[in-house]
């Protein structure tokens, strides 16, 4: 009859939709991790900025680049840190929107999966009755 074939088809559809859902969920978790990292770094940078502001003009600032400790200008260091902070905030915002999109897509996929499942169930119930 047509119903076994239809059933199989529906099941395949269910699998593909479930895969999509999984992918989206992985994306969402990755997004979360990146966001966390960025958030921590942002906090650190803000601390650094605070301390740098407390420094007097003639203090020596060094930056550790790899194994090398390089002397830096206070003003330069300030500017760098500020720029980093701005960059990281922008990144976070971008990540937020991406996360939102991913979540929406996840919800819609979930609904689709549910619908397919329901159809399968109804089909099976119909077959069982018949």
């Amino acid at each position: 009859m047509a119903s076994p074939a239809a059933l199989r088809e529906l099941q395949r559809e269910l699998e593909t939709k479930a895969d999509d859902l999984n992918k989206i969920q992985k994306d969402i978790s990755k997004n979360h991790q990146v966001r966390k990292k960025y958030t921590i770094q942002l906090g650190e940078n803000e601390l650094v900025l605070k301390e740098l502001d407390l420094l007097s003009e003639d203090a020596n600032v060094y930056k550790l680049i790899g194994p090398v400790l390089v002397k830096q200008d206070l003003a330069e260091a300030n500017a760098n840190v500020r720029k980093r902070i701005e960059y990281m905030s922008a990144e976070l915002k971008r990540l937020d929107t991406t996360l939102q999109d991913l979540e929406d897509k996840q919800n819609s996929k979930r609904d689709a999966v549910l619908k397919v499942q329901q159809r399968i169930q109804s089909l099976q119930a119909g077959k069982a009755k018949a």
Partner: protein
Amino acid sequence: MEEAAKKGRVTPLASLFPVEEAQKAVRRVHETLSEKESELDRFRGFISDNTNLINLVQKLPEGLHHNIMVPFGKAAFFPGRLIHTNEFLVLLGEGYHVERTSKQTVEILKRRGKALQSQVESLKATMQDLKAEASFFGITASEAAEGLVEIREDYVEENFTERESQSGPPKEHPPSFSEADKVKVAVEDEEYSCMVSRLDELEKAEYEAGYGNETHEDIENVAVSDEEYARMMSRLDELEKEELEAEFVNERDEDNAKLAVNDEKYAHMIARLDEIEKEPETECGNERDEDEKIKADFDQSSDQISLDKINRFSESRKLLEQTKDKKSATEETLDKRDTQKDLTDRLNCTGLTVQSRPKEEMSHGKGLVHGIMKSTPLEKALVLPEVKENVQAASSLRSEAPLQDSKPGFDSRKAFTGSIIERAHNMQTSSSQQAATSSQSTVTQPSKPVSRFKMQRR
């Protein structure tokens, strides 16, 4: 449990908070709690390290140089000297180091220590919340396991319109009601049950006040069937009121085509209605209010007066009922007063619910009128202004409407078979009226005044 049967509901706590789920919740909260605790330990470690460092940094400048064992690689040391004891390269973060003196370093370290402390505080607060949550879950789980039950009862006095709580069947739906009013009850909601109970109360009060021995019996009987009929009566009352109003309005609005038949009688009734309604003066918020007002009106006036009014009301109501299909209405206390068989019948049909409310205030009478007026437009001959959900028998009513009699005697559909005649004299007058207006009176007038319920029971 009887309580549930009567007015209340007993809910085992386990049903609301399943035992396993509560225990699972407890476990979850405990896990989170332990995580937070480990974080707290880490923070404490940091704070102690910071304090040690501060002490060291303060101690170092005490000498010009120190002889130390310098670590060399992973597993070796060699003897050496620590010089420049007041110069510190402090890591600020993000790879930035700054040269500071001992005092300045100590200041930086102290600031860091404060930041750590604030983090610890917030963590502790979170843990407190989690602990409270865990204790709540634990208590609920243990209670549910013990089989504690939650007993709920209606507070009928106040909360007529209270909706069912999500936990289940309407509490306000005593079984006795449903028996009698299956047809109507299905549609009605708790309001009617409220009205019914009110009706009962009012009836009882009336009986006690207005009647002698006869009524005792009636009261007893009434008490038995009150719930059943009260609803219907209230409905009938409402319907009648609506009819009356419609009639009334129609006359005013020249919508008399439908009323043409009943005009004279209606006019009489309407006039009576007006009188009654004038008493309550409050504005009619809504039909409900109005009805209530009318009821209140009735309530407030003495029983006799109310009886009179009821009489007239019932008459008018009969007519109204016939002409009205539905009335969105109000639970009116008219029901209590009016309950003539016809009325009740009609009310049943039209779903008018008249509730006798203990004292709504004068506005009731007015309300009734207003309600009637609202229902003015009788689109069809019998279409009455919408009765609130009560109108199941609307169609039947409609059919009857032209006849003008809603068959007080009884409708097999309805629990009430006849008009309910509240008072002896009322009954008589009403019955005569009814006879005049319609053919109903099958049950109407026994030689002696009988409680309306009795009448209905024919």
